[in-house]
């Protein structure tokens, strides 16, 4: 018999993460660790906030990002421009398992906190360094946002329809992917440490993360010398004969259903499910190859059917016949109209420091024994000064007062 889920058991309880990361990829990576019980201490500073433009709290969306990326973490306000700030950070390294950062170039080295230095403080420390281009190579000092990397990798150029400008992914897919990669890398390093006692340094280039998701592109360009011929294909697949395959306009304003038909069996089920209109019997559509070849015409005809249905109706009708179909869901659909996400509980309401419930995303994987998940929202800026200075660092009241006077907590 499978063991029962253990309430309150967290895989990473006892793991402490000193988290210097900011913006999207870094905090989203360490959020994965916090979800599973790691004590993630977010090191923040008024000076750093000034650089990001204070966006964290200046708009409702900014507030949402802060909660979603930092749920369950602690916040320690520390001024790394002061010698006391650096000294306290190093004392925290000595009692941490993981140090995470995504500063540009030489910031950590300037503080005497590059990997070699950290290793002298804590021999089995795991250091995650996330950066746009990686910490070596001719472009190591290049500055990039998610969209910059998507452009550089080819994702932007290849996402969209052939007859219009490319659109690229709607948001920073490279950051989201780098976050997943960063979390994996830390978990791999923790496993390695548990098996061998060794720590290590992780040099994560967000550019390389995106490029590793290019799938067969590298092989196709290399083996088939096909570079110029690889172009945008809109919602159709570049290989194989899937058709109909795309988003089809439905009843309502900007409402769509996605349909993916691969085999003859699925095509027959599709034709029957939509009531067997005469055009579905057209000989041109009898084979997968024919359907793909006449996809423009087929897409137009499919839309004559979908246009008379809501996307929900179309999805349920087609799924009942065994055809892969799904509503092209907006943010409102996901939150308000999706019984599947609701039953599985993807969205969580967690209290912030004032007890106000905030919406965040839960872990999109379910572990039967140790489900984890966020218990509270993002911390308030500097919300855990007492815990860190007194309980973790054992500082005296005098010491703390002197550091405050010297601006070490700003």
């Amino acid at each position: 018999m499978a063991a029962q889920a253990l309430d309150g058991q967290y895989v990473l309880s006892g793991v402490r993460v000193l988290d210097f990361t900011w913006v999207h990829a870094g905090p989203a990576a360490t959020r994965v660790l916090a979800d599973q019980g790691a004590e993630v201490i977010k090191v923040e500073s008024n000076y750093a906030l000034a650089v990001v433009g204070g966006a964290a709290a200046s708009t409702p969306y900014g507030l949402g990002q802060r909660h979603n990326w930092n749920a369950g973490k602690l916040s320690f306000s520390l001024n790394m421009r002061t010698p006391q700030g650096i000294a306290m950070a190093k004392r925290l390294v000595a009692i941490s398992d993981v140090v995470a950062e995504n500063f540009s170039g030489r910031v950590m080295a300037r503080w005497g906190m590059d990997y070699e230095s950290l290793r002298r403080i804590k021999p089995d420390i795991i250091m995650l360094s996330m950066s746009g281009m990686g910490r070596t190579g001719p472009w190591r000092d290049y500055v990039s946002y998610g969209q910059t990397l998507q452009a550089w990798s080819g994702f932007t150029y290849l996402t969209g329809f052939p007859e219009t400008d490319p659109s690229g992914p709607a948001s920073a897919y490279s950051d989201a992917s780098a976050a997943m990669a960063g979390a994996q890398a830390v978990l791999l390093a923790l496993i390695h440490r548990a098996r061998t006692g060794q720590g290590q340094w992780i040099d994560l280039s967000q550019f390389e993360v995106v490029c590793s998701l290019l799938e067969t592109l590298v092989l196709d360009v290399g083996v088939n010398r096909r570079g110029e011929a690889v172009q945008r294909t809109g919602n159709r697949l570049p290989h194989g004969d899937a058709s109909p395959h795309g988003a089809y306009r439905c009843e309502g304003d900007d409402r769509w259903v996605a349909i993916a038909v691969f085999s003859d069996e699925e095509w027959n089920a599709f034709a029957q499910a939509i009531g067997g209109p005469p055009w579905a019997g057209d000989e041109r559509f009898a084979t997968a190859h024919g359907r793909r070849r006449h996809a423009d015409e087929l897409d137009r005809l499919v839309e004559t059917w979908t246009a008379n249905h809501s996307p929900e109706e179309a999805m349920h009708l087609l799924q009942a016949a065994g055809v892969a179909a799904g509503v092209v869901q907006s943010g409102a659909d996901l939150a308000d109209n999706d019984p599947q996400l609701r039953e599985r509980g993807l969205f969580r309401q967690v209290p912030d420091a004032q007890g106000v419930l905030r919406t965040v995303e839960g872990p999109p994987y379910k572990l039967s024994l140790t489900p984890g998940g966020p218990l509270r929202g993002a911390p308030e800026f500097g919300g855990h000064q007492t815990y860190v200075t007194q309980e973790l660092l054992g500082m005296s009241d005098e010491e703390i007062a002197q550091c405050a006077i010297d601006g070490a907590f700003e």
Partner: protein
Amino acid sequence: MPDSTQDGQQPLTGYRVLDLSGPLGVYCGKLMADMGADVVKVEPPGGDPMRHIGPFAHDKPGPDSSLYWLHFATNRRSITLDVTSADGAALLRRLASKADVLLETHQPGLMKSLGLGYSDLSDLNSGLVYVSITPFGQTGPYRDYKGSDLIGLAMGGYMYVTGWPHTPPTRLWGSQAYHTASNRASIGALLALYHRLATGQGQHVDVSMQEAVAATTEHVNIYYAYEGTPAVRCGFRHGGRFVATWRCKDGYVSITTHRQQAWDDLRAWMAEEGMAGDLMDEKYNDTFVLRGENSAHIEEIIEKWAMRHTRQEITDWGQARHYPFGPAATPVELLENPQLQGRGFFVQAEHPGFAESVTYPGAPYRLSRSPWRLRTAAPRIGQHNARVYGDELGLSQEEMARLAGAGVI
């Protein structure tokens, strides 16, 4: 610089993974195999259907020429097994009793109907980490709904916002819903393995592609939850800040003016060339101008200016000032990228039947002591049958011959 070659052990060296997955999970298997796990791909007799997904080397379809298979099946061993037969299921149970991880992407309930569900196998091996990836998860009203990469992007919310206002919602290039499901599954599997190191206990990891995508859009859920209206499609003119891509002389270039200084410098550059129009006017001082009511006017001015410059000129100008500018590269430019080459991102492997070595994308992360590695290229169908069934499981020659004759292996 830490020495990356001082010892050879990868983080997952010594772990055995039975991989029964299709496209939903094949990347998860690759992630684990590339980090050292012994991932045994269980193919149906005759070969895995993924061997017939294009593109193909020199456009010649065949089980060993699918570049999809070559890419995703690195570092795997291959055995053939018909798990739908009673003998096959019995054999899989024996394999699972010695495995650390089982990875599968069948529709919910199918493995259980074969006597191969999580509870069946955990009875034999309580340490087994059993990873199931499906379009919608093991529970909920849509659990039996069919899905593909496209459906994952649609139901997960990424597709509605990708594309232009005048185009249909648009898929991401490649199969990113599958990748995202696999990335999330890999995190789940690693957490379960870490837990097992401490307790010896395995568990079931249930991953829904839809949820994986829905938790990866960055803005879709949070924008709606906190702003109260759903995010919409805006092509490559992104979000609140000045993050946008532009047509230019030789293609497209991404320009992000993430700071006031960057926007002011860009306007000044345009003014120097007499192309700034009225952009120097103080009503356009804010870097959020592209969201304002004059956005069409501003876009027209910038595009007219950008068309006079190449991607490289604009990129070099921005990077010299530490602003995040970069060209929209085309596929053919990718393999020549100086940074990827400088860091040795691409790796080569010999492949039987190929005249030249094949170039693969490399590590998504670099661990200094226990690194990613391309050890072996994709296996042939059942290449490791004798080794796995004979040497490791202890089947006799006669038993193997009987099972082969019955179409089980």
